[in-house]
């Protein structure tokens, strides 16, 4: 799994490509920790190319959300695929991490 960070001006986009699981979860945590540490407050995780997420992957997203909120910002997710959507619905985490249709929409109304 690969993570790329893009500065989009008002927010930082983290593009996650591959399978978000026990192996890759710590890298997502580190990537977002680094972005928040460098001053990014608004993070959008682009999951368009994340074909699979397990509980460890969800745990990493939740951890990243907490880090962003503790820094006074927020983390949102965009472009989720079917399997990820199902995990979010099953765990009801879509009530906390509501997926946005596109990356641009995530912070558009803030």
């Amino acid at each position, binding site marked *: 799994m690969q993570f790329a960070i893009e500065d989009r001006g008002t927010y930082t986009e983290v593009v996650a490509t591959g399978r978000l699981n*026990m192996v890759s979860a710590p890298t997502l*945590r580190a990537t977002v920790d680094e972005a928040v540490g460098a001053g990014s407050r608004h993070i959008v995780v682009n999951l368009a190319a994340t074909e699979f997420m*397990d*509980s*460890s992957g*969800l*745990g990493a997203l*939740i*951890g990243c959300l907490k880090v962003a909120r503790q820094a006074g910002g927020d983390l949102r997710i965009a472009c989720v695929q079917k399997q990820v959507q*199902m*995990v979010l*619905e*099953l*765990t*009801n*985490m879509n*009530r*906390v991490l509501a997926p946005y249709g596109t990356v641009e929409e995530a912070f558009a109304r803030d």
Partner: protein
Amino acid sequence: MTVSAPERRALVIEDDADIRMLLVGVLKREGFLVEEAATVREGVEAARRGVDIITLDLNLPDGNGLDACAQIRPISDAYILMITARGTEIDRLAGLDSGADDYITKPFSPRELVARINSLFRRQNRQLAATEAASAADENERRRAAQVQQSLLPRQGLQLQEYDVAGKFRPSRAVGGDFFDWYPAADGMHFTVADAMGKGMGAALVAATVRAVLRSTAEEPDLAQAFASAAASLEGDLERASSFVTLLHGRLSTADGGVDLIDAGHGLALHISPDGSWRRLASGGVPLGTVPGWEWEVVRLTLAPGDSLAIISDGLLDIYNTLEEFAVAAAGTVAGADSARDACEKLLVLGEDPRVEDDVTAVVVRRNGGEAA
């Protein structure tokens, strides 16, 4: 890993043909498969193909032995024995700094060379044996952990008038983050099916903690209150462990078949009628450890005679495209089973699929009676 002698390969890097022949002869008698090289370039090439031991002359036509050593070390873990005509301390130190393991000065006797090589392999075998002992200890620990985790599961066959209760758990590793639990209460029983984030030992530790804390709230008569207090005491631990737990926790009142249920992000509880029709129960609560101060709602259902409540871990979901497909398959399996135990076994059989990588757990509570009885 085995200690049984594999073919040992040696490489002799030496430009003097006589000495090379001598070294090759000695190493062959010791049972080595021997390759030869007369220059640094040839030597590095041969080392790249993989060898266990290298004898390396300090003076070679295209460079010195120290350079060769520096080039070989990054590409090979072979034991490097430097052979030098200059027996001064400086040469010796430089030889060892460059990544060589030992040195021998010319002139040397074949017996001295053999003694050096044998002492090296004794050392390697001791290291190998130590590694093996450590992995055997790890294996014992895993086995013991698996036994402990099994012992934390309830005994089969809680004796409840009119009800049949069974559960089954198959971890994807020695131990896992799934668990189920039940115990008798004044008017029926309490039960839990949970899945701690991740797999393996870390997840199992979290699971055991959650089980103990939930049990400690059994005396609190109000389910919502009991669950809130369990969640409050687990929140800090889960936060520090960067973990969370999805679970279903419920209370069955045997007299009327009433079940009070809290869904903390588990989402896979099915109320199944004897004809196989089903309803998925979801109260919309988030997993434990994700949102501080969350208030979980209690959902209520009534098991009519013949009805089953099946709670299944998400491991099984891996083989279905949609929740709907999963529910149809699971409901059909449970409705067609002879008993709660039979239903659990058949549900786990569905999970015997290479696509299922996670722990798989199923608990079935069936109220006896109905048309079939």
